[in-house]
């Protein structure tokens, strides 16, 4: 036995070169997807935030003398049927839609991640009940459910928040639950539990940081989904109410002039598409960067 005992100094294995994983920043700078998404999204967000500075006109100011004018020096993107400046409206609409998109995702994200983590870790009866609720919500066609809920709780932003709050958490709950269930059977979770750490600590400090990336990545595309839903609701007249500008109602209003003034609908439509592309790229890029090795 004693022959096997060596001093710790002799136990050192040669390992001079440490394969260091590049830092988050350097990985981010080397991901074209992430870069493209970040640049596009930042630009759109910056434009929306700067709306009061670069908007030049109030988004609701009407100028009935100059309706449906094409792009000009005074109105870069022209005016709509009430003579409102389209550039300004586009920027302010971006403000509204992005804000609603982010806020509407915030609650489902946090609630869903919480529920999913708890269900995945503890399992049992509560888990079965919650997952059946999730199944029921998922079984409904998404838009039918949202439209019905908005009808019930009322048209406008608060209706959108409540409708999404009630339905959208299920997706986060389901993905986080499966991630947690996988994590909980892994050795390092057992090691942490065996090491005497409290379950709360194991759950929030060990498991959650590993499972939350999936939810964050999904949240990016979810913002796009919400914006699309807001735009769709706006188009149906159930979303943001006039005169507050929003891309959906701009498309809906512009539709009347689709034969003569195509840009009225095309410009806000393009804004929606660009925002969607930006956030999707950002989500994909984040998924690549955050994925644990």
């Amino acid at each position, binding site marked *: 036995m004693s022959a096997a005992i*060596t001093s710790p*100094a002799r136990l050192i294995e040669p390992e001079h070169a440490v394969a260091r*994983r590049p830092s988050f920043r350097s990985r981010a700078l080397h991901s074209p997807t992430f870069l493209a998404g970040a640049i596009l999204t930042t630009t759109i967000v910056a434009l929306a935030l700067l709306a009061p500075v670069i908007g030049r006109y109030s988004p609701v100011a009407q100028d009935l003398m100059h309706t449906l004018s094409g792009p000009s020096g005074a109105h870069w993107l022209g005016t709509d049927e009430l003579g409102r400046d389209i550039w300004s409206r586009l920027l302010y609409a971006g403000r509204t839609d992005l804000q609603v998109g982010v806020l509407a995702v915030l609650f489902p994200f946090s609630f869903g991640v919480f529920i999913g983590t708890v269900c995945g870790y503890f399992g049992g009866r509560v888990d079965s009940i919650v997952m059946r609720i999730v199944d029921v919500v998922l079984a409904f066609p998404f838009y039918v459910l949202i439209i019905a809920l908005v009808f019930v709780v009322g048209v406008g932003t608060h209706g959108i928040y409540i409708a999404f709050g009630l339905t959208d958490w299920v997706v986060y709950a389901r993905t986080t639950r499966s991630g947690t269930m996988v994590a909980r059977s892994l050795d390092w979770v057992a090691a*942490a539990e065996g*090491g005497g750490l409290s379950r709360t*600590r194991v759950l929030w400090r060990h498991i959650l940081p590993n499972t939350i990336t999936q939810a964050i990545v999904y949240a990016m595309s979810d913002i796009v989904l919400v914006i699309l839903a807001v735009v769709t609701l706006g188009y149906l007249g159930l979303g943001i109410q006039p005169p507050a500008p929003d891309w959906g109602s701009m498309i809906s209003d512009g539709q009347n002039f689709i034969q003569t003034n195509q840009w009225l609908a095309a410009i806000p439509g393009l804004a929606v598409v660009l925002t969607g592309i930006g956030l999707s790229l950002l989500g994909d890029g984040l998924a690549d960067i955050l994925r644990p090795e």
Partner: protein
Amino acid sequence: MTPILEVEGLVVEMRRHRTVFRAVDGVSFALERGGALAIVGESGCGKSLTLRAIMGLLPNGGRLAAGRVIIDGVTLDTGARGRGHGHGQHRRMSIVFQDPLSALNPVATVGNQIAEAPRHVLGLGRSASRARAVELLRLVGIPDPERRYHAYPHELSGGTRQRVMIAIALSSDPSVLLCDEPTTALDVTIQTQILALLAHLRVERSLSLVFVTHDLGVVSQVAERLAVMYTGRLVETGPTASLLAAPRHPYTSGLLAAALDVDTPEREPLAIPGSLPDPLRLTNGCAFQPRCQFATPECTTTDVRLELVGPDHQAACLHSDVLSAAQAVGHHV
């Protein structure tokens, strides 16, 4: 002196599909203070489950149906809580797993993982836990511990990860270290280093070890006591040296015959005929009987128990005398 760890009649039931079977069936052993016990057996014989049951970390579908775990005179609460024993008790034990990558949290630095138990279990301050983590990294033979503190698991080699795993296990200052095949996933040179480290720690930290492995080659290096496990039961226990020299259970001698021996390369390793029985179809009598060359009709009917067959040496075989007689005449079995 009372043993540091006593396990009495441990029974683990596993649910598979709709059937329940005993994956660990009445395992008992005692570990002396500062002692080391190796448990060997084929994959699936229940040796890892035994360790997890002792730690209170049974996987889903597993249930501790009976048995007591007494550590340092204190009986652990192995009752209803399922995963993890009550606070404070298990601090006396830590476990080291087989695969050091999956046993480390991929998104936390190794230093923080080591410092966590001192900070949140032992209640040390932030800088004290940090200092302790660095000291543990140094103790397990990791060079430049201050720098390695900030490394993530995937940045380290397999051997270093296993050292980190051992450092984490030691961070709660246990008196018993349970090792679940800690060297199986490592290559042979690193394996030797880790075994040497464990031997070193035994002396340095007066640790007691339970070492589960399927590799008979490492047994004599780490443990002076050996327990052989087959289909969830201990079939032979005793001092490592005498058990390896003169096994009294046909399964043990079969395992030895199946191992490659560097000293006698001309000897071909002999496989044990047959394979592990389906745990769902275990019958009465000796579980090894269908594969045993000494089996007689009464082996199928009599329940065999561990019986004393030599000084401090127990075997669960009706024909342990036949085996020892065969060895006496030099007949290789």
